[in-house]
């Protein structure tokens, strides 16, 4: 039996599945220095990025003269100063580190001023003279698709396309008794983490070290090496805890660490680079705005027969992660249901606005907003209850996903939906609300459900793996070197629990260390809900290897068979006679004395997936996490304001390594989903962002919070991961917007197809309907 099978059946778990206090909470409450900006020391140089003021222009000339004349300015770097490749494109090589001949959005980096202090850096940045020749710009993806549109890239304005051809949609729609067709739009969302992007680069002899908040240490290493023309071993990346990341720092730090590294290498001094809040708003990636035309058909007994979907995701000036985001959306387009006939066409479209990219959910919130709105519209047309209608189509083991993948295990969406509906008494609640609305004049209540699924790990069948290292110290304490970044989600705490569980020690024995590319092999990024599953499984691999050594040394010391050794609470004993025992620390010391290996690397390799680019069909993901949200809202018909009173949530998490950490993720994800649904939107004028601060980009405050009174955890283990656990950090965001808009539909009878659903939109929709009625 392999170690993964052993863990799945392990009994008497002391940490896994239990709620523990976060070991990082104390330091954070004490406000101890932890973050990148807290590592700023005297003597570090400041780098300031000079950004394009034009949405689309040719760079005619750059004059560094005046900037170099500012006292304290040491150098001004432009594209021509880059020793390696001036290329940071992620999926497509379309994005320069520093703009060379052309700029494509307001805020694009053109030059970098490096100075002895912040004042000089800022002053220098103002004085770098850049002469532009303005080009016609295009800000709307539909405009960008027109043949007459200005070309943003030489290849044209379509970065990539996707398709799915499953079954025969024509035939499917012929079988349909009801058909619903709508177009949905979603907006640009900003991550709005409290800590802005910050990087420190320290030059060493023929080497450079990066310290930063981040999500992808090894990608940063690759990018820095590429830009500097270094080998990877000449770049060391040390992860520092992030003050929030949500996908933003996955994309951004690999794009700015090379700038700091370049400045450090050119000046021979450590360099500090930190975005101001307005830079974060103007120049960091955003959630892709989308336009989705969605046609669905079902039979009168409530079976989905066909969906036909056209997806446009606006990637802005550069493709960045867009191809993967679009592909993920495409692969999930039908929602967590079996639909025999599926046709999807996706386009990723360039515009002259800030580039889009990774953001919690990675393309899935947009497509689920459309898919789950459609489900309610179909149910309404069929006169069926939305839960009942979903249950008739929901994915079960043996059924196939949008892209024809047969899901065979850990498919707990049906269980999640049934349990949640039952727990909150869906039918009764719905009736109560409808009764309330009959009496109420000003306020209308509503309840709505939405389901979602989210494939774990990388898209398009790209290879995936992870790594970790465990060291048993001579005193019996354990150093765990994780490859997954600390974003506040607590993934490494989950890993540490797994390590402690396997080694039989309390969690307090484990010292948790974040990624360092010089300390462990590549573990791949902290994204795609893969942190716990892939990193945790690598941790389990390392811990299992060391457990074998501990067991062996203990069996020698206790003179018994290895099979008789048990370890619990740092005590190693002989199962048939527990009085024969030794402390874990003694065995640890003996490992060293007797020459056993005291450290181990652990690895995880994703199962092979398959992807046919001609049809889009294949095995898209090793496993999916499934989520169900039920939202309750109250609509103020006088003002159009929507109050989300509560969101109930259920998910199949495989195995809850820590139910409390999972709940924390649900809370945060739902709050971000709330902002996405009701208030958050980036507003432009001629390509320039108008709301580049927290005053006018409106995220929820404590008074806007949503209660999450019901959390149901379904545990259908995934055999490919340690203890069967799946990642959940992105999950609860995905069905939040449609759950809320479905609830608004229930309250008002109006289907909102565009996010955010602002009070204005609600007010005028209600007014229009009143006009139509009277």
């Amino acid at each position, binding site marked *: 039996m392999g170690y993964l099978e052993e863990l799945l059946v392990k009994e008497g778990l002391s940490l896994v599945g239990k709620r523990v206090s976060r070991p*990082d*909470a104390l330091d954070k409450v004490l406000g101890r220095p932890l973050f990148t900006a807290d590592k700023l020391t005297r003597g570090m140089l400041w780098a300031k990025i000079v950004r394009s003021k034009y949405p689309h222009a040719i760079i005619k000339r750059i004059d560094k003269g005046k900037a170099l004349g500012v006292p304290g300015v040491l150098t001004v770097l432009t594209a021509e100063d880059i020793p390696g490749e001036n290329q940071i494109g992620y999926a497509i090589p379309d994005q320069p580190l520093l703009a060379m001949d052309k700029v494509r959005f307001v805020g694009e980096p053109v030059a970098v001023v490096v100075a002895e202090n912040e004042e000089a850096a800022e002053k220098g940045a103002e004085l770098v003279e850049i002469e532009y020749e303005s080009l016609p710009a295009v800000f709307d993806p539909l405009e960008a698709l027109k043949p007459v549109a200005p070309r943003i890239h030489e290849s044209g304005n379509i970065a990539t396309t996707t398709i799915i051809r499953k079954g025969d949609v024509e035939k499917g729609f012929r079988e349909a008794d009801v058909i619903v067709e709508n177009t949905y739009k979603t907006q640009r969302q900003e991550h709005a983490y409290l800590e802005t992007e910050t990087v420190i680069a320290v030059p060493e002899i023929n080497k450079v070290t990066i310290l930063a908040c981040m999500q992808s240490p090894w990608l940063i290493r690759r990018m820095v090496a590429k830009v500097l023309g270094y080998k990877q071993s000449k770049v060391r990346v040390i992860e520092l805890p992030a003050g929030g990341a949500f996908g933003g720092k996955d994309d951004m730090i690999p794009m700015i660490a090379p700038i700091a590294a370049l400045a450090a290498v050119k000046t021979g001094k450590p360099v500090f680079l930190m975005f101001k809040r307005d830079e974060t708003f103007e120049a960091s990636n955003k959630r892709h705005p989308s336009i989705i035309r969605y046609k669905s058909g079902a039979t009168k007994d409530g079976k989905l027969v066909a969906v036909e979907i056209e997806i446009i995701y606006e990637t802005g000036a550069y493709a960045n992660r867009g191809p993967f985001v679009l592909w993920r959306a495409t692969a999930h387009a039908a929602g967590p249901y079996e639909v025999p006939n599926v046709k999807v066409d996706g386009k990723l479209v360039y515009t002259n606005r800030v580039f889009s990219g990774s953001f919690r959910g990675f393309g899935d919130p947009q497509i689920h907003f459309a898919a789950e709105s459609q489900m309610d519209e179909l149910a309404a047309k069929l006169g069926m209850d939305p839960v009942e209608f979903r249950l008739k189509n929901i994915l079960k083991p043996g059924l196939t996903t949008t892209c024809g993948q047969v899901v065979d295990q850990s498919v707990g969406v049906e269980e999640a939906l049934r349990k949640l509906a039952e727990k909150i008494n869906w039918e009764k609640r719905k009736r109560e609300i409808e009764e309330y609305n009959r009496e109420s004049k000003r306020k209308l209540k509503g309840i709505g459900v939405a389901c979602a699924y989210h494939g774990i790990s990388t898209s398009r069948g790209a290879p995936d793996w992870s790594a970790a290292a465990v060291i048993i110290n001579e005193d019996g304490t354990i150093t765990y070197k994780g490859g997954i970044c600390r974003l506040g989600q607590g993934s490494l705490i989950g890993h540490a629990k797994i390590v402690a569980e396997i080694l039989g020690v309390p969690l307090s024995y484990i010292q948790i260390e974040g990624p360092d590319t010089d300390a462990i092999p590549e573990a791949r990024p902290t994204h795609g809900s893969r942190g716990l599953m892939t990193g945790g499984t690598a941790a389990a691999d390392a811990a299992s290897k060391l457990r074998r050594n501990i067991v062996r040394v203990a069996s020698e010391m206790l003179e018994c068979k290895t099979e008789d050794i048990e370890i619990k609470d740092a005590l190693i004993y002989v199962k048939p006679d527990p009085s024969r025992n030794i402390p874990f620390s003694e065995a640890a010391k003996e490992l060293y004395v007797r020459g056993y290996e005291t450290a181990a690397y652990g690895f995880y390799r994703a199962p092979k997936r398959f992807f046919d680019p001609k049809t889009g069909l294949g095995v898209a993901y090793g496993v999916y996490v499934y989520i169900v949200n039920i939202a309750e809202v109250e609509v103020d018909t006088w003002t159009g304001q929507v109050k989300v009173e509560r969101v109930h949530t259920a998910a199949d998490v495989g195995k809850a390594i820590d139910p409390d950490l999972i709940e924390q993720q649900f809370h945060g994800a739902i*709050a971000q989903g709330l902002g996405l649904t009701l208030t958050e939107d980036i507003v432009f004028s001629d390509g320039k962002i108008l709301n580049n601060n927290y005053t006018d980009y409106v995220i929820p405050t404590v008074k806007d919070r949503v209660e999450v009174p019901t959390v149901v955890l379904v545990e259908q283990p995934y055999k490919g991961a340690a203890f069967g656990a799946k990642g959940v950090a992105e999950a609860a965001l995905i069905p939040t917007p449609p759950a809320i808009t479905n609830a608004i539909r229930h309250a008002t009878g109006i289907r909102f197809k565009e996010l955010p659903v602002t009070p204005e939109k609600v007010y005028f929709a209600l007014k229009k309907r009143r006009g139509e009625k009277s």
Partner: protein
Amino acid sequence: MNETGNLKIKFTLNGKPIEYMVKPNWTLLDLLRKELSVLSPKEGCSRGDCGACTVLLNGKPVNSCLVLAPQIDGKEIVTVEGLIEDKEFKALKETFIEKGAVQCGFCTPGIIVSAVALLREKGNPTVQDIEEALEGNLCRCTGYIRIIEAVKQAAEKLQKTS
């Protein structure tokens, strides 16, 4: 003030008297972080929108990014570093850990400062009181649910012990 326009100010920081030559265009946040290495107040927005830099000025929570350094002459400044022995802080520390009210931790020091001020003023705060005390502290990770619970529970703890 000297000829360069810098001026010497006296204030107490976490109970300790300090004399320091400041530039008028420094904010209190700059002074704390860059000059005095008091790092618990964080720079989140520099314009009073997020509350990550909240400190106590004469006992009241303020955004230290919106206070100019010369303005604290003769005043008392307290940050989390100076609250460690405080009974309200101790109660909050316990409940924030118990309730898992911390995720990334970047907004946490500001929230703790705001919560300490609340608990000093109101022994038995209602949920509305807590909301009002924390409405100027943005958090993007937690959805605030656990934070409210932790402050409420800290208040109850303090009530019991007093």
